[in-house]
Every structure is written in C-alpha cells, then in structure tokens.
C-alpha cells in the first residue's frame, strides 16, 4: 500500500513548522520532499534600519541561539566601522556564548530523547536546562532572549560575586551532566534505537557541506572556534569533538561531549574576568560604511553574517546564512529508505531550528 504522509507543518514532534512529504511503502519511507518557508518573515529586509535596533532584531531570528546571532551581528557591524570592543565585553560574550551552547545542547538532547519516547530523561534534560536558564536570568535579566549584546560591547557586567556564582554553577552542572551522560550512553533501548539509524557518511557530509555537530558526527572536524577563531577563542584553544560513525547516535554523543567542553571553556574564562578592565562598552565614533563578514560557531553549526554600511545610521545590507540552512538538505537523503518511526528522530538529531532556517 503506497500512501503519502504529510509530516507537518503542525506535528507533535516539532515545535516549529516544517513540512515533509513522505511517500510510504508500509512502514518504509520511499521518497521524501522537504518544504520550508512557513516561518519566513522577511527579516533580512527589515535589517535595513538603525544598526542599534538591529542587535535586538538579530536576537529574535532564533530564540535558541540568541546570543550567537546577536554576537555575530554586533561583530559584523563593529567590523564595518572598525570598532574594537573592550576586553571585558569579549570575555562576557564568550561566557554567554558557551552558556547558551549548554542550554541549546540540553534542549536538543532532550527533544531527541522525547522523539524516541523516553519521557523520563527528557524531563531530566529540561530540569538541568532550568539551572542554565536561571543563570541567564541572573546575569542578563531574561530567560531566553537575553538582550545584552549591543554594537560596541555588552550592557550588563559580570561582577566578582556573579563570577563566584558562575564557578559554583559549573561544578553543579558538570556533576549533573556526568549523570546524564552515564544514563544516555549506557541505556540499551536508546542505543538500540539510535545506532545505525540515519547514517551520514563522511563523503556525503562533505558533499552537502553540513556544519556543526552533524558534520562532526560524521568525522569532519569543522568547528569555527578552531578554524577561524573569533572573540576570545584565539586564547582559549578549542579542539573539535569528532565521532566517526555518522549515525543519530554519533550526532547525539557529540552534543553530550560538547556539554563538558563548554563547561571547561566557561571555567577558563572566569579568571580572565578579574584581569580585564572595567570597560564593557566602547562608543563608536564613526558610522558603518565598509563591508564585513563574521562567522560564529552556533550550537547548530556555522553562522554567517555579512554586513554592509552606507555611511549612515541605517545599514545597507545584512545577509544571514544560518546553520540550519546549511544542514537542511542533509536530512532528506537520510530519511529516504528509513522507517517512519525514525523520521522524527533523524530530523531532531539535526537539531533543526526553523526560525533560523526560514528567517
């Protein structure tokens, strides 16, 4: 019996709209067609306004990698006017970036587990995530959309007390993540479901130019933090975490292992706060006029911003290439030939962020 299943745009497994048109043969998917654009708001056009407001708009492209979007945008605009941000601001930005990677990866792992019906660990992931969100609320004043990055620096300082709290947070988080790692890696049913499912070979990964944990799960050591260091990653060396098997399991394990990497980077950043000067904001004397681009390693992979000024407060052009946009074509070949039960799992291990995807 051949049937066509419309997977989405409103589907329980995704919180965001995306449509997969699946042609089925029994339980096996014969053909798959990806339809996006349900989230298209036209933000790149909207960016042609006051560059200060743009920082807030760039945050709202995607709520999960807020900090990465706004950092990338601010760095690009700062580049167009040749502005150097104070060191303290750079340290604070790096801490926030890594905190965000923690919360995003916990979310991705949790949703992956939920898509295979493991409610208990899903709840545990979200419980751990609440601790990160609390930390965000203390440091930035909001749980998800932080709004501390502006062109020229940040608006909230991390004082010595907060630094102490961050250290405590790192200890608690590491212990909790270790527990989580044990539970995930040693569970029989999770391995049964994920190993050997949705295998993306290294060649395919290179051909499709996938980025982020998806590429690293397929043995492509591509991490912008190591390849083209930005803010503080010149000093803090990052070694890309790579898994070789390329299946759903590998992609999830990369995320689990990156949790510890992020905690480690935060730990390295905290002492740097004490040495950095008190300035967190540098006022620019010029207006954006040149062209500039930046790349940032978002939780989902490479994030690219191109900015062009026209010697006025308004920007001429901002181009955004998000990580999910690079990964999007990747899941279509994997879904072909898989079970219907695995469709949700495969897409979720790509950690699709449709808000980024469609902009």
């Amino acid at each position, binding site marked *: 019996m051949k049937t066509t299943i419309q997977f989405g745009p409103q589907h329980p497994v995704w919180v965001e709209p995306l449509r997969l048109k699946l042609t089925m043969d029994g339980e096996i998917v014969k053909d798959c067609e990806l339809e996006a654009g349900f989230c298209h708001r036209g933000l790149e056009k909207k960016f042609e306004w*006051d560059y*200060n*407001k743009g920082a*807030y*708009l760039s945050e*709202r492209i995607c709520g999960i990698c807020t900090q990465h979007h706004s950092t990338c945008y601010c760095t690009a605009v700062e580049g167009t006017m040749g502005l150097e941000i104070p060191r303290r601001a750079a340290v604070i930005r790096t801490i926030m970036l890594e905190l965000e990677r923690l919360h995003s990866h916990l979310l991705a792992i949790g949703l992956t587990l939920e898509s295979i019906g493991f409610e*208990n*660990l899903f709840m*545990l992931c979200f*419980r751990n995530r609440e601790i990160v969100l*609390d930390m965000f*609320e*203390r440091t930035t*004043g*909001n749980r998800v959309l932080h*709004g501390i990055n502006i062109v020229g620096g940040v*608006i*909230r300082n991390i004082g010595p007390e907060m630094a102490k709290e961050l250290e405590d947070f790192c200890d608690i988080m590491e212990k909790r993540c270790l*527990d989580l790692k*044990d*539970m995930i890696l*040693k*569970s*029989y049913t999770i391995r049964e479901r994920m190993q050997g499912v949705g295998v993306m070979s290294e060649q395919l990964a290179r051909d499709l130019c996938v980025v982020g944990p998806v590429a690293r799960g397929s043995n492509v050591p591509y991490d912008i933090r190591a390849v083209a260091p930005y803010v503080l990653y010149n000093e803090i060396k990052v070694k890309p975490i790579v898994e070789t098997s390329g299946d759903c399991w590998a992609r999830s394990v990369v995320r689990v292992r990156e949790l510890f990497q992020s905690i480690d980077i935060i730990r390295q950043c905290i002492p740097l706060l004490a040495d950095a000067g008190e300035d967190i904001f540098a006022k620019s004397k010029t207006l954006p006029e040149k062209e500039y681009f930046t790349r940032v390693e978002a939780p989902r992979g490479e994030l690219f911003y191109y900015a062009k000024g026209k010697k006025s407060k308004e920007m001429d052009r901002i181009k955004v290439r998000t990580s999910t946009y690079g990964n999007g074509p990747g899941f279509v070949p994997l879904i072909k030939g898989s079970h219907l039960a695995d469709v949700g799992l495969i897409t979720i291990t790509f950690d699709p962020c449709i808000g980024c995807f469609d902009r």
Partner: protein
Amino acid sequence: MLKILANIGKNLISKPYTSNYPFTPYQHFPGVRADVTFDGTKCILCGLCQRSCPAECILIHKEQEQIEYLNTQCIRCGYCVRVCPTNAISQNEVYTKPSRQRLTVYTKVTNENAPVIKKRMAAEAAKKAAAEKPATAGTGPAKPAGEKKVDEKKTSA
C-alpha cells in the same frame, strides 16, 4: 539502565522539583527585565524613546502631553531605558499579567521643564496676560477653546 533505575528511585523519594507557582507568589531575581513605566514628572517629551523603540510601542503625543505605551507590543529590550536623557523610564521586575484585551498604558506628563510644556505655559501666560489687559470678560471663552482642541486631537488619534 541501572543508573536510570537509581535515578528514578531518587526522584521518587525526593520532593518534586516543581515550583508551586500560582499558590506561592512569583519570585524573580534582581534585575529581571519586564515592561517599562514612565515617570511623568521627569519626562521632557523629547521623543528619543519613540524613535529608538524597535517594536514601535511608544507613542509620544506632544500636544496632549502624554505618552502612549502599548504594553502588549513591547518587547522588553530596555533600549528606551538606555537612551532616555532624564532617566524618566524605568524597567519593572514583575511581568505583566495576561489579559483579555490588549493593554495600553497612558502616562500624563507633568514636568514643567519639558520644552513643549514650557512653551504652552508661556503661551497660556501670555494669553492670560493679553486677555486680562483689554477686559475681564475675555478670559471666559479663551480656555474652553484650548481644551476643545485637545479633545479633537484625541478622537482623531
């Protein structure tokens, strides 16, 4: 598998992590960004916040000397707080409760140092002085006319 078993055992014994929210009051950390309030005694009606707001949720009515703040449209970014030259805008720490209609908050500006108000008061004073000079009967019709003007603007807005 054993680790998960141990974990669920621990969960069963320990108290639930759930906060008892509607029954216990809302608790927040200091410095949480919620909606903003305007201080009418400090505002000088310069309009910087209106121009800088990314969500276009602040409308300054200079003639009526009041600020219209669309609470439901505000994105709580805090940019207006930063640009305000007189610190008339402050950010609350308690979130706005949900409602069945969209919320709009009007704030009347009473700051006498605001240029617009200064101008008006000067004009009024001049008018008053002008009215008092020729005859005492002239003061009657002058004031209602001014008020009517404001009313017209309100209805049109």
